[in-house]
């Protein structure tokens, strides 16, 4: 009797998971010109080397092209967080304002999957 309820139980569990992901979905905004575009797909950042303007805030367009949730967590060479984007279940695109950065190379990771990494080069010339 209990075993017969298993398919329904499994279905409910998947419905919860899908419902929670669906709640985070939002219509994709257009990417403004000059935005730094970072993409995630296949459990990796597909843009692992990006350039950004130093000394002034800029827009980061993070595009998650797959179902599993990802984010962009930007840190300096010492490991100090300079920007932490929200975790986004995909497929979805989210724009975020990153505060002005000093000219340097910064690393970025996904907090959910820390083996996903990339680099952002902040230069005076910009992106």
């Amino acid at each position, binding site marked *: 009797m*209990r*075993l017969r*309820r*298993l398919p329904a*139980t*499994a279905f*409910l*569990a*998947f419905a*919860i*998971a*899908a419902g*929670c*992901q669906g*709640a*985070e979905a939002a219509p994709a905004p257009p990417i403004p010109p000059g935005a730094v575009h970072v993409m995630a797909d296949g*459990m990796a950042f597909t843009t692992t080397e990006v350039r950004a303007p130093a000394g002034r805030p800029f827009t980061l367009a993070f595009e998650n092209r*797959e*179902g*599993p*949730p990802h*984010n962009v967590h930007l840190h300096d060479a010492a490991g100090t967080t300079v920007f932490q984007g*929200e*975790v986004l*279940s995909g497929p979805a695109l989210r724009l975020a304002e990153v505060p002005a950065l000093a000219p340097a190379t910064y690393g970025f990771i996904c*907090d*959910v*999957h*820390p*083996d996903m990494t990339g680099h952002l080069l902040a230069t005076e010339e910009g992106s």
Partner: protein
Amino acid sequence: MGLSQVSHVSQVSIKGRSLPGALSAILRLSVVWLALATAAIHATLGGWMFLANAAGYTVLAVAMIAPIAFLGRFRWLVRAALIGFAVVTIVGWLMFGARFQLAYVDKVIELMLVAVLIAELHLHDGGPANVLRRSIDLGAGIGRTALSLSGRGVAR
């Protein structure tokens, strides 16, 4: 409440089951449901670690209800393993995990799972001290068997 009233309450039945029997079924169903729910959530996160976690929860959930005599004898161990698995998952998240909506939902489910398992542990296994004693006995038994087998190997 007097002893006679307690006795009366214990004989209350739900659809033909005694109250402890019905409670036991509800708890077991809750354990399986919660374990499969957190397995489903982990499966959506991608990456081998989350998939391994989902597989672990699924295997333990099935082991909680599989009508296999051997598993029935060691249900107390499966229950203890599931508590340990959930606690390690929660602590791992507290130490290294990302903070986002689905993660918080999952942690609530896992905490509920641990609470229900502890209730089951009291109902079926006589509490954590008894489970610890049985685990030590089991470990000692396995140790004795291993020593006996290695002794035979040396004798040959």
